[in-house]
Protein backbone atom coordinates (compact mmCIF):
# COMPACT_ATOMS: atom_id res chain seq x y z
CA UNK A 1 0.00 0.00 0.00
CA UNK A 2 1.36 3.45 -0.87
CA UNK A 3 2.17 5.88 1.94
CA UNK A 4 3.10 9.49 2.61
CA UNK A 5 6.50 10.47 3.94
CA UNK A 6 4.99 11.18 7.38
CA UNK A 7 3.45 7.69 7.54
CA UNK A 8 6.73 6.07 6.49
CA UNK A 9 8.79 7.88 9.13
CA UNK A 10 6.26 6.99 11.83
CA UNK A 11 6.05 3.33 10.73
CA UNK A 12 9.83 3.06 10.90
CA UNK A 13 9.97 4.73 14.31
CA UNK A 14 7.25 2.43 15.61
CA UNK A 15 8.99 -0.68 14.25
CA UNK A 16 5.96 -1.52 12.12
CA UNK A 17 5.79 -2.52 8.44
CA UNK A 18 3.28 0.27 7.83
CA UNK A 19 0.86 2.60 9.58
CA UNK A 20 -2.43 4.18 8.55
CA UNK A 21 -3.91 7.52 9.64
CA UNK A 22 -5.73 7.05 12.94
CA UNK A 23 -3.43 4.28 14.21
CA UNK A 24 -2.19 4.74 17.78
CA UNK A 25 1.52 3.99 17.90
CA UNK A 26 4.48 4.16 20.21
CA UNK A 27 7.21 5.86 18.20
CA UNK A 28 10.92 5.88 19.07
CA UNK A 29 12.17 9.44 19.27
CA UNK A 30 15.61 10.39 18.05
CA UNK A 31 15.71 13.76 19.82
CA UNK A 32 13.76 15.47 22.55
CA UNK A 33 14.33 19.22 22.53
CA UNK A 34 13.69 21.92 25.09
CA UNK A 35 14.47 25.44 26.25
CA UNK A 36 14.47 27.40 29.49
CA UNK A 37 10.70 27.14 30.02
CA UNK A 38 11.09 23.36 29.56
CA UNK A 39 12.82 23.39 32.95
CA UNK A 40 9.27 22.35 33.85
CA UNK A 41 9.90 18.93 32.26
CA UNK A 42 12.85 18.27 34.58
CA UNK A 43 10.65 19.21 37.52
CA UNK A 44 8.14 16.61 36.30
CA UNK A 45 10.87 13.92 36.06
CA UNK A 46 12.03 14.83 39.55
CA UNK A 47 8.49 14.56 40.89
CA UNK A 48 8.13 11.16 39.23
CA UNK A 49 11.36 9.97 40.85
CA UNK A 50 13.05 9.37 37.49
CA UNK A 51 16.74 10.19 37.70
CA UNK A 52 17.94 9.59 34.15
CA UNK A 53 16.98 10.35 30.56
CA UNK A 54 16.82 7.70 27.82
CA UNK A 55 19.98 9.03 26.13
CA UNK A 56 21.89 12.09 27.40
CA UNK A 57 23.23 12.66 23.84
CA UNK A 58 19.72 12.89 22.42
CA UNK A 59 18.09 15.35 24.78
CA UNK A 60 18.91 18.82 23.45
CA UNK A 61 18.54 22.01 25.47
CA UNK A 62 19.08 25.70 24.86
CA UNK A 63 18.13 28.95 26.58
CA UNK A 64 16.10 31.24 24.35
CA UNK A 65 12.88 32.55 25.89
CA UNK A 66 13.91 34.49 28.98
CA UNK A 67 17.45 35.36 27.89
CA UNK A 68 19.25 37.48 28.95
CA UNK A 69 17.30 36.93 32.18
CA UNK A 70 14.92 39.89 32.47
CA UNK A 71 13.55 39.08 35.94
CA UNK A 72 14.63 37.34 39.12
CA UNK A 73 12.23 34.47 38.39
CA UNK A 74 13.88 34.01 35.01
CA UNK A 75 17.32 34.07 36.60
CA UNK A 76 16.23 31.47 39.16
CA UNK A 77 14.82 29.27 36.37
CA UNK A 78 18.08 29.51 34.42
CA UNK A 79 20.07 28.56 37.52
CA UNK A 80 17.82 25.56 38.17
CA UNK A 81 18.04 24.50 34.51
CA UNK A 82 21.84 24.51 34.73
CA UNK A 83 21.65 22.24 37.77
CA UNK A 84 19.26 19.83 36.05
CA UNK A 85 21.49 19.75 32.95
CA UNK A 86 24.39 18.66 35.13
CA UNK A 87 22.40 16.20 37.22
CA UNK A 88 20.87 14.45 34.19
CA UNK A 89 24.16 14.56 32.26
CA UNK A 90 22.68 16.35 29.21
CA UNK A 91 25.46 16.53 26.58
CA UNK A 92 24.12 19.19 24.23
CA UNK A 93 23.22 22.25 26.28
CA UNK A 94 23.56 25.68 24.69
CA UNK A 95 23.98 28.09 27.58
CA UNK A 96 23.45 31.83 27.00
CA UNK A 97 26.12 33.07 24.60
CA UNK A 98 26.76 29.61 23.16
CA UNK A 99 23.78 28.82 20.98
CA UNK A 100 20.57 30.66 20.36
CA UNK A 101 16.94 30.00 19.53
CA UNK A 102 16.08 26.29 19.67
CA UNK A 103 14.69 25.75 16.16
CA UNK A 104 17.65 27.54 14.60
CA UNK A 105 20.52 26.21 16.72
CA UNK A 106 19.69 22.49 16.77
CA UNK A 107 19.59 22.09 12.97
CA UNK A 108 22.54 24.48 12.57
CA UNK A 109 24.60 22.32 14.95
CA UNK A 110 23.74 19.22 12.90
CA UNK A 111 21.87 17.58 15.77
CA UNK A 112 18.59 16.90 13.92
CA UNK A 113 18.63 13.99 11.48
CA UNK A 114 16.39 13.55 8.45
CA UNK A 115 13.97 10.63 8.65
CA UNK A 116 13.71 10.65 12.45
CA UNK A 117 11.05 11.57 15.01
CA UNK A 118 11.69 14.67 17.11
CA UNK A 119 9.46 16.03 19.86
CA UNK A 120 9.92 19.06 22.04
CA UNK A 121 8.28 21.29 24.55
CA UNK A 122 7.75 24.14 22.11
CA UNK A 123 4.91 24.33 19.64
CA UNK A 124 7.24 25.35 16.80
CA UNK A 125 9.12 22.06 17.09
CA UNK A 126 7.40 21.28 13.77
CA UNK A 127 10.21 23.35 12.15
CA UNK A 128 12.42 20.26 11.64
CA UNK A 129 10.04 18.91 9.02
CA UNK A 130 12.12 21.05 6.67
CA UNK A 131 14.86 18.41 7.10
CA UNK A 132 12.51 15.58 6.14
CA UNK A 133 11.96 14.61 9.79
CA UNK A 134 8.70 14.12 11.68
CA UNK A 135 8.65 16.71 14.43
CA UNK A 136 5.92 17.89 16.73
CA UNK A 137 5.44 20.12 19.75
CA UNK A 138 4.09 18.87 23.08
CA UNK A 139 3.74 20.06 26.66
CA UNK A 140 6.13 19.60 29.57
CA UNK A 141 4.62 16.36 30.90
CA UNK A 142 4.60 14.64 27.50
CA UNK A 143 8.16 15.80 26.96
CA UNK A 144 9.20 14.53 30.39
CA UNK A 145 7.77 11.13 29.41
CA UNK A 146 9.67 11.24 26.11
CA UNK A 147 12.88 12.18 27.94
CA UNK A 148 12.43 9.18 30.23
CA UNK A 149 11.28 6.62 27.66
CA UNK A 150 12.79 7.69 24.34
CA UNK A 151 9.37 7.13 22.83
CA UNK A 152 6.00 8.86 22.56
CA UNK A 153 2.47 7.74 21.89
CA UNK A 154 1.07 9.31 18.74
CA UNK A 155 -2.00 9.07 16.61
CA UNK A 156 -0.86 8.82 13.00
CA UNK A 157 -2.12 11.94 11.23
CA UNK A 158 -3.78 12.06 7.85
CA UNK A 159 -1.77 14.20 5.42
CA UNK A 160 -2.88 17.31 3.57
CA UNK A 161 -0.71 18.08 0.54
CA UNK A 162 0.08 21.63 -0.56
CA UNK A 163 1.33 21.54 -4.11
CA UNK A 164 2.65 24.98 -5.06
CA UNK A 165 3.25 25.18 -8.79
CA UNK A 166 5.38 27.72 -10.66
CA UNK A 167 8.00 29.93 -9.07
CA UNK A 168 7.79 32.60 -6.36
CA UNK A 169 8.62 36.12 -7.46
CA UNK A 170 11.94 37.61 -6.31
CA UNK A 171 10.33 39.51 -3.39
CA UNK A 172 8.19 36.61 -2.21
CA UNK A 173 9.66 34.21 0.34
CA UNK A 174 8.83 31.08 2.28
CA UNK A 175 7.13 33.36 4.81
CA UNK A 176 4.76 34.74 2.18
CA UNK A 177 4.05 31.19 1.04
CA UNK A 178 3.12 29.90 4.49
CA UNK A 179 1.08 33.02 5.31
CA UNK A 180 -0.79 32.51 2.04
CA UNK A 181 -1.48 28.85 2.92
CA UNK A 182 -2.70 29.66 6.46
CA UNK A 183 -4.82 32.47 5.04
CA UNK A 184 -6.47 29.97 2.73
CA UNK A 185 -7.18 27.19 5.24
CA UNK A 186 -7.49 29.03 8.58
CA UNK A 187 -5.93 28.55 12.01
CA UNK A 188 -7.57 25.15 12.40
CA UNK A 189 -7.43 24.20 8.72
CA UNK A 190 -4.94 21.40 9.39
CA UNK A 191 -5.98 20.51 12.96
CA UNK A 192 -4.36 17.17 13.94
CA UNK A 193 -3.04 16.71 10.37
CA UNK A 194 0.31 16.50 8.64
CA UNK A 195 0.99 19.33 6.19
CA UNK A 196 3.20 18.21 3.31
CA UNK A 197 4.59 20.99 1.14
CA UNK A 198 5.59 20.12 -2.38
CA UNK A 199 5.64 21.42 -5.93
CA UNK A 200 8.12 23.34 -8.03
CA UNK A 201 7.92 26.52 -5.92
CA UNK A 202 8.79 24.63 -2.73
CA UNK A 203 11.54 22.58 -4.39
CA UNK A 204 13.18 25.79 -5.60
CA UNK A 205 13.39 27.25 -2.08
CA UNK A 206 16.58 27.24 0.00
CA UNK A 207 16.63 25.64 3.45
CA UNK A 208 16.05 28.83 5.44
CA UNK A 209 12.72 29.39 3.67
CA UNK A 210 11.79 25.75 4.20
CA UNK A 211 12.40 26.09 7.95
CA UNK A 212 10.10 29.12 7.93
CA UNK A 213 7.33 27.19 6.15
CA UNK A 214 7.41 24.14 8.43
CA UNK A 215 7.82 26.38 11.51
CA UNK A 216 4.35 27.83 11.00
CA UNK A 217 2.48 24.56 10.34
CA UNK A 218 1.29 24.77 13.96
CA UNK A 219 -0.43 28.07 13.13
CA UNK A 220 -2.86 26.01 11.04
CA UNK A 221 -3.26 23.55 13.93
CA UNK A 222 -1.11 20.85 12.31
CA UNK A 223 0.69 18.04 14.12
CA UNK A 224 3.66 18.35 11.79
CA UNK A 225 4.78 20.10 8.62
CA UNK A 226 7.13 18.35 6.25
CA UNK A 227 9.11 18.84 3.05
CA UNK A 228 10.62 15.75 1.47
CA UNK A 229 14.39 15.36 1.50
CA UNK A 230 16.08 16.44 -1.73
CA UNK A 231 19.42 17.79 -2.95
CA UNK A 232 18.85 21.09 -1.12
CA UNK A 233 18.36 19.15 2.14
CA UNK A 234 21.44 17.07 1.39
CA UNK A 235 23.46 20.24 0.82
CA UNK A 236 22.42 21.48 4.27
CA UNK A 237 23.02 18.31 6.28
CA UNK A 238 26.30 17.29 4.63
CA UNK A 239 29.20 18.30 6.82
CA UNK A 240 26.75 19.12 9.62
CA UNK A 241 25.00 15.89 10.56
CA UNK A 242 27.66 13.44 11.74
CA UNK A 243 25.48 10.39 12.26
CA UNK A 244 23.73 8.27 9.62
CA UNK A 245 20.26 9.30 8.65
CA UNK A 246 17.34 7.93 6.66
CA UNK A 247 15.58 9.33 3.63
CA UNK A 248 11.87 8.70 3.06
CA UNK A 249 9.69 9.84 0.19
CA UNK A 250 5.94 9.89 -0.35
CA UNK A 251 4.79 7.32 -2.87
CA UNK A 252 3.43 8.90 -6.04
CA UNK A 253 0.04 7.25 -5.42
CA UNK A 254 -0.02 7.90 -1.66
CA UNK A 255 -3.39 8.80 -0.19
CA UNK A 256 -3.87 12.39 0.90
CA UNK A 257 -6.87 13.63 2.81
CA UNK A 258 -6.88 16.71 0.60
CA UNK A 259 -4.58 18.17 -2.02
CA UNK A 260 -4.49 21.92 -2.49
CA UNK A 261 -2.84 23.10 -5.67
CA UNK A 262 -2.04 26.78 -5.92
CA UNK A 263 0.11 28.72 -8.32
CA UNK A 264 3.03 30.66 -6.88
CA UNK A 265 2.08 33.72 -8.91
CA UNK A 266 -0.74 34.34 -6.36
CA UNK A 267 1.83 34.52 -3.56
CA UNK A 268 2.78 38.18 -3.49
CA UNK A 269 4.33 39.77 -0.36
CA UNK A 270 1.75 39.00 2.35
CA UNK A 271 0.92 40.15 5.86
CA UNK A 272 -1.15 38.50 8.58
CA UNK A 273 -3.25 41.25 10.15
CA UNK A 274 -4.23 41.45 13.82
CA UNK A 275 -5.09 39.25 15.62
CA UNK A 276 -4.72 35.99 13.71
CA UNK A 277 -2.05 34.34 11.55
CA UNK A 278 -4.92 33.45 9.20
CA UNK A 279 -6.09 37.05 8.71
CA UNK A 280 -3.89 37.33 5.63
CA UNK A 281 -3.85 40.00 2.92
CA UNK A 282 -1.34 41.24 0.34
CA UNK A 283 0.94 43.83 1.95
CA UNK A 284 -0.13 46.28 -0.76
CA UNK A 285 -3.72 46.08 0.51
CA UNK A 286 -2.81 47.36 3.98
CA UNK A 287 -0.35 49.96 2.76
CA UNK A 288 -0.17 53.00 5.01
CA UNK A 289 -0.69 51.31 8.38
CA UNK A 290 1.66 53.21 10.69
CA UNK A 291 4.19 51.00 12.54
CA UNK A 292 5.89 51.89 15.83
CA UNK A 293 8.08 48.81 15.98
CA UNK A 294 9.63 46.42 13.48
CA UNK A 295 10.99 43.08 14.66
CA UNK A 296 13.23 41.00 12.41
CA UNK A 297 14.21 37.69 13.95
CA UNK A 298 12.77 34.61 15.76
CA UNK A 299 12.72 30.88 15.08
CA UNK A 300 10.66 31.74 12.02
CA UNK A 301 12.86 34.35 10.33
CA UNK A 302 16.11 34.96 12.24
CA UNK A 303 18.50 33.01 10.00
CA UNK A 304 21.27 34.49 7.92
CA UNK A 305 19.33 34.72 4.66
CA UNK A 306 16.56 36.55 6.56
CA UNK A 307 19.06 39.11 7.81
CA UNK A 308 20.56 39.43 4.33
CA UNK A 309 17.11 40.09 2.89
CA UNK A 310 16.42 42.77 5.49
CA UNK A 311 19.84 44.37 5.02
CA UNK A 312 19.38 44.54 1.24
CA UNK A 313 16.50 46.97 1.78
CA UNK A 314 18.01 48.88 4.72
CA UNK A 315 21.43 49.51 3.19
CA UNK A 316 22.12 53.23 3.10
CA UNK A 317 18.61 54.00 4.42
CA UNK A 318 17.26 55.17 7.76
CA UNK A 319 14.51 53.73 9.88
CA UNK A 320 11.62 56.22 9.82
CA UNK A 321 11.29 58.68 12.67
CA UNK A 322 8.97 57.31 15.35
CA UNK A 323 9.66 53.70 14.38
CA UNK A 324 11.92 51.33 16.31
CA UNK A 325 13.77 48.52 14.55
CA UNK A 326 14.86 45.41 16.44
CA UNK A 327 17.08 42.89 14.67
CA UNK A 328 17.52 39.59 16.48
CA UNK A 329 19.93 37.06 14.97
CA UNK A 330 18.59 33.59 15.83
CA UNK A 331 21.94 32.12 16.85
CA UNK A 332 25.42 33.29 17.85
CA UNK A 333 26.69 31.85 14.55
CA UNK A 334 24.14 33.88 12.56
CA UNK A 335 25.19 36.91 14.61
CA UNK A 336 28.87 36.32 13.73
CA UNK A 337 28.14 35.80 10.04
CA UNK A 338 26.02 38.95 9.97
CA UNK A 339 28.90 40.83 11.56
CA UNK A 340 31.46 39.48 9.10
CA UNK A 341 29.24 40.26 6.13
CA UNK A 342 28.73 43.83 7.32
CA UNK A 343 25.00 43.36 7.89
CA UNK A 344 25.14 44.56 11.50
CA UNK A 345 26.72 47.78 10.34
CA UNK A 346 23.85 48.30 7.90
CA UNK A 347 21.26 47.74 10.67
CA UNK A 348 23.03 50.01 13.15
CA UNK A 349 23.64 52.79 10.64
CA UNK A 350 19.97 52.62 9.70
CA UNK A 351 19.11 53.27 13.36
CA UNK A 352 18.24 49.70 14.31
CA UNK A 353 18.96 47.90 17.58
CA UNK A 354 20.71 44.54 17.29
CA UNK A 355 20.04 42.24 20.23
CA UNK A 356 21.45 38.86 21.25
CA UNK A 357 19.49 35.78 20.17
CA UNK A 358 16.23 35.69 22.14
CA UNK A 359 12.53 34.93 21.77
CA UNK A 360 11.83 37.94 24.05
CA UNK A 361 9.52 40.23 22.07
CA UNK A 362 7.94 37.44 19.98
CA UNK A 363 6.06 36.01 22.97
CA UNK A 364 5.66 39.27 24.87
CA UNK A 365 8.27 38.27 27.43
CA UNK A 366 10.78 41.12 27.35
CA UNK A 367 13.27 43.01 25.15
CA UNK A 368 10.89 45.15 23.12
CA UNK A 369 7.24 45.07 24.18
CA UNK A 370 4.49 47.26 22.73
CA UNK A 371 2.53 49.98 24.54
CA UNK A 372 -1.24 50.49 24.37
CA UNK A 373 -2.21 51.62 20.89
CA UNK A 374 1.11 50.67 19.28
CA UNK A 375 1.48 48.59 16.13
CA UNK A 376 4.35 46.33 15.10
CA UNK A 377 5.24 44.53 11.92
CA UNK A 378 7.21 41.43 12.79
CA UNK A 379 8.78 38.44 11.08
CA UNK A 380 7.65 36.23 13.98
CA UNK A 381 4.88 33.64 13.88
CA UNK A 382 1.98 34.80 16.07
CA UNK A 383 -0.09 37.96 16.31
CA UNK A 384 -2.65 36.89 18.90
CA UNK A 385 -4.16 39.57 21.18
CA UNK A 386 -1.47 40.99 23.53
CA UNK A 387 1.15 38.62 22.08
CA UNK A 388 3.89 41.30 21.96
CA UNK A 389 2.84 43.46 24.87
CA UNK A 390 -0.18 45.53 25.88
CA UNK A 391 -3.64 44.16 25.09
CA UNK A 392 -4.25 47.33 23.11
CA UNK A 393 -1.29 46.68 20.79
CA UNK A 394 -1.40 45.13 17.34
CA UNK A 395 0.99 42.91 15.40
CA UNK A 396 1.26 42.27 11.66
CA UNK A 397 3.29 39.26 10.53
CA UNK A 398 5.41 39.49 7.40
CA UNK A 399 8.63 38.50 5.65
CA UNK A 400 12.00 40.17 6.36
CA UNK A 401 11.68 42.09 3.06
CA UNK A 402 8.27 43.49 3.96
CA UNK A 403 9.31 44.23 7.56
CA UNK A 404 12.51 46.02 6.50
CA UNK A 405 10.75 48.05 3.81
CA UNK A 406 8.10 49.03 6.35
CA UNK A 407 10.80 50.11 8.85
CA UNK A 408 12.13 52.61 6.30
CA UNK A 409 8.67 53.85 5.36
CA UNK A 410 7.37 53.96 8.96
CA UNK A 411 4.25 52.28 7.64
CA UNK A 412 3.41 48.98 6.01
CA UNK A 413 4.51 48.81 2.39
CA UNK A 414 4.92 46.17 -0.28
CA UNK A 415 8.71 45.72 -0.59
CA UNK A 416 8.43 45.77 -4.38
CA UNK A 417 7.53 49.44 -4.17
CA UNK A 418 10.70 50.52 -2.38
CA UNK A 419 13.37 48.15 -3.72
Amino acid at each position, binding site marked *: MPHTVTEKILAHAAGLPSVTPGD*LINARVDNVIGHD*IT*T*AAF*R*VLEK*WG*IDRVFDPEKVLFTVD*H*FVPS*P*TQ*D*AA*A*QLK*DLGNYIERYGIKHYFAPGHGGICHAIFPEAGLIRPGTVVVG*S*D*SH*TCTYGALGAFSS*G*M*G*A*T*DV*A*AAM*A*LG*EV*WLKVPATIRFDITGRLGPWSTGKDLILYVIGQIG*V*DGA*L*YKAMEFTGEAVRALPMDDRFTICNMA*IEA*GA*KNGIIEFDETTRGYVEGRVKEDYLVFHSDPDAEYETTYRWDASAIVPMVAQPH*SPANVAPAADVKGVRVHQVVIGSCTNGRISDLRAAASLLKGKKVAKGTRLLVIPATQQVYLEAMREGLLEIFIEAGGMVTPPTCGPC*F*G*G*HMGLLADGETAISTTN*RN*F*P*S*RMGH*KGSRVYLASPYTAAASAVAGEIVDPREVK
Partner: protein
Amino acid sequence: MAGRVWKFGDDVDTDQIIPGRYLADWNKHPEKLGQYCFADVRPEFAQNVKPGDIIVAGRNFGCGSSRESAPTAIKMAGVQLVIADTFARIFFRNCINIGLLVLESPEAARAVQEGDELELDPVGKIRNLTQGTEYPCKPVPPFLQEILDAGGLKPYVQKRLAARD
Protein backbone atom coordinates in the same frame (compact mmCIF):
# COMPACT_ATOMS: atom_id res chain seq x y z
CA MET B 1 -21.48 18.73 40.68
CA ALA B 2 -23.15 21.56 38.81
CA GLY B 3 -21.02 24.44 37.61
CA ARG B 4 -21.60 27.90 36.24
CA VAL B 5 -20.55 28.61 32.66
CA TRP B 6 -17.98 31.08 31.35
CA LYS B 7 -18.57 31.29 27.61
CA PHE B 8 -15.77 31.89 25.09
CA GLY B 9 -15.65 32.09 21.29
CA ASP B 10 -13.49 30.40 18.62
CA ASP B 11 -9.68 30.16 18.49
CA VAL B 12 -8.97 31.10 22.10
CA ASP B 13 -5.16 30.83 22.09
CA THR B 14 -2.87 29.93 24.95
CA ASP B 15 -1.46 33.48 25.09
CA GLN B 16 -4.95 34.63 26.02
CA ILE B 17 -5.27 31.86 28.60
CA ILE B 18 -1.92 32.68 30.24
CA PRO B 19 0.24 35.50 28.81
CA GLY B 20 3.90 34.65 28.19
CA ARG B 21 5.24 37.13 30.70
CA TYR B 22 4.02 34.93 33.59
CA LEU B 23 5.94 31.87 32.46
CA ALA B 24 9.37 32.42 33.98
CA ASP B 25 9.68 29.56 36.44
CA TRP B 26 5.93 28.90 36.48
CA ASN B 27 6.33 25.25 37.27
CA LYS B 28 7.97 25.92 40.63
CA HIS B 29 4.71 27.43 41.89
CA PRO B 30 1.95 26.33 39.51
CA GLU B 31 -0.71 27.29 42.06
CA LYS B 32 0.10 30.96 41.40
CA LEU B 33 -1.06 30.74 37.79
CA GLY B 34 -4.79 30.77 38.51
CA GLN B 35 -4.79 34.47 39.39
CA TYR B 36 -3.39 35.36 35.92
CA CYS B 37 -5.74 33.18 33.88
CA PHE B 38 -7.18 35.28 30.99
CA ALA B 39 -5.46 38.30 32.60
CA ASP B 40 -5.47 40.49 29.47
CA VAL B 41 -8.60 39.51 27.60
CA ARG B 42 -10.97 38.88 30.49
CA PRO B 43 -9.54 40.30 33.72
CA GLU B 44 -12.78 39.71 35.64
CA PHE B 45 -12.44 35.95 35.13
CA ALA B 46 -9.74 35.29 37.73
CA GLN B 47 -11.48 37.58 40.23
CA ASN B 48 -14.90 36.00 39.96
CA VAL B 49 -14.33 32.37 38.96
CA LYS B 50 -15.57 29.88 41.58
CA PRO B 51 -14.42 26.32 42.23
CA GLY B 52 -16.38 24.00 39.97
CA ASP B 53 -17.09 26.57 37.25
CA ILE B 54 -17.10 25.38 33.63
CA ILE B 55 -15.65 26.89 30.46
CA VAL B 56 -17.62 26.44 27.23
CA ALA B 57 -15.89 27.53 24.03
CA GLY B 58 -16.09 27.28 20.26
CA ARG B 59 -13.63 25.84 17.78
CA ASN B 60 -9.91 25.25 18.26
CA PHE B 61 -9.77 26.07 21.97
CA GLY B 62 -6.18 26.28 23.25
CA CYS B 63 -4.47 26.91 19.92
CA GLY B 64 -0.95 28.31 19.78
CA SER B 65 1.86 27.58 22.19
CA SER B 66 2.63 24.21 23.78
CA ARG B 67 2.65 25.78 27.24
CA GLU B 68 1.28 23.35 29.80
CA SER B 69 0.85 26.38 31.99
CA ALA B 70 -2.35 27.14 30.03
CA PRO B 71 -4.46 24.18 31.22
CA THR B 72 -2.66 24.43 34.58
CA ALA B 73 -3.81 28.05 34.96
CA ILE B 74 -7.40 27.02 34.15
CA LYS B 75 -7.24 24.16 36.64
CA MET B 76 -5.65 26.31 39.34
CA ALA B 77 -8.39 28.90 38.83
CA GLY B 78 -10.81 26.19 39.99
CA VAL B 79 -12.44 25.24 36.69
CA GLN B 80 -13.65 21.62 36.76
CA LEU B 81 -14.38 21.06 33.08
CA VAL B 82 -13.74 22.64 29.68
CA ILE B 83 -16.22 21.93 26.89
CA ALA B 84 -15.50 23.04 23.33
CA ASP B 85 -16.57 22.40 19.76
CA THR B 86 -12.97 21.32 19.04
CA PHE B 87 -9.63 21.56 20.84
CA ALA B 88 -6.14 22.32 19.56
CA ARG B 89 -4.13 19.13 19.76
CA ILE B 90 -1.23 20.07 22.07
CA PHE B 91 -3.64 21.69 24.52
CA PHE B 92 -5.83 18.57 24.53
CA ARG B 93 -2.87 16.30 25.35
CA ASN B 94 -1.74 18.68 28.06
CA CYS B 95 -5.19 18.60 29.69
CA ILE B 96 -5.18 14.81 29.84
CA ASN B 97 -1.67 14.86 31.31
CA ILE B 98 -2.46 17.29 34.10
CA GLY B 99 -5.92 15.87 34.82
CA LEU B 100 -8.13 18.70 33.59
CA LEU B 101 -11.34 17.21 32.21
CA VAL B 102 -12.02 18.24 28.59
CA LEU B 103 -14.99 17.24 26.44
CA GLU B 104 -15.87 17.91 22.81
CA SER B 105 -19.50 18.82 22.26
CA PRO B 106 -20.41 20.97 19.25
CA GLU B 107 -24.02 20.96 20.48
CA ALA B 108 -23.11 22.41 23.88
CA ALA B 109 -20.69 24.87 22.27
CA ARG B 110 -23.57 26.19 20.16
CA ALA B 111 -26.41 26.30 22.68
CA VAL B 112 -24.92 27.03 26.10
CA GLN B 113 -25.09 30.64 27.29
CA GLU B 114 -22.88 32.59 29.67
CA GLY B 115 -23.95 31.92 33.27
CA ASP B 116 -25.89 28.70 32.53
CA GLU B 117 -25.62 25.94 35.14
CA LEU B 118 -24.31 22.68 33.68
CA GLU B 119 -23.96 19.23 35.11
CA LEU B 120 -22.12 16.21 33.72
CA ASP B 121 -24.13 13.06 34.31
CA PRO B 122 -22.42 9.70 34.88
CA VAL B 123 -23.27 8.40 31.39
CA GLY B 124 -21.46 11.32 29.85
CA LYS B 125 -24.33 13.60 28.89
CA ILE B 126 -24.03 17.32 29.56
CA ARG B 127 -27.18 18.58 31.26
CA ASN B 128 -28.10 22.26 31.10
CA LEU B 129 -30.00 22.97 34.32
CA THR B 130 -30.79 26.55 33.27
CA GLN B 131 -32.26 25.76 29.86
CA GLY B 132 -33.59 22.29 30.76
CA THR B 133 -31.80 20.66 27.83
CA GLU B 134 -28.98 18.18 27.40
CA TYR B 135 -26.18 17.62 24.92
CA PRO B 136 -24.17 14.60 23.86
CA CYS B 137 -20.39 14.76 23.98
CA LYS B 138 -17.74 12.76 22.18
CA PRO B 139 -16.40 9.97 24.38
CA VAL B 140 -12.76 10.28 25.46
CA PRO B 141 -10.77 7.77 23.33
CA PRO B 142 -10.18 4.53 25.33
CA PHE B 143 -6.39 4.91 25.32
CA LEU B 144 -6.64 8.39 26.85
CA GLN B 145 -9.28 7.19 29.29
CA GLU B 146 -6.73 4.62 30.50
CA ILE B 147 -4.21 7.38 31.15
CA LEU B 148 -6.87 9.40 32.98
CA ASP B 149 -8.00 6.37 35.01
CA ALA B 150 -4.39 5.61 35.94
CA GLY B 151 -4.13 9.12 37.38
CA GLY B 152 -2.09 10.79 34.64
CA LEU B 153 1.01 9.96 32.64
CA LYS B 154 3.27 8.93 35.54
CA PRO B 155 1.92 5.36 36.00
CA TYR B 156 2.00 4.88 32.22
CA VAL B 157 5.67 5.89 32.07
CA GLN B 158 6.57 3.77 35.09
CA LYS B 159 4.82 0.74 33.60
CA ARG B 160 6.69 1.10 30.33
CA LEU B 161 10.01 1.61 32.10
CA ALA B 162 9.39 -1.45 34.29
CA ALA B 163 8.55 -3.57 31.24
CA ARG B 164 12.11 -3.00 29.99
CA ASP B 165 13.92 -4.14 33.12
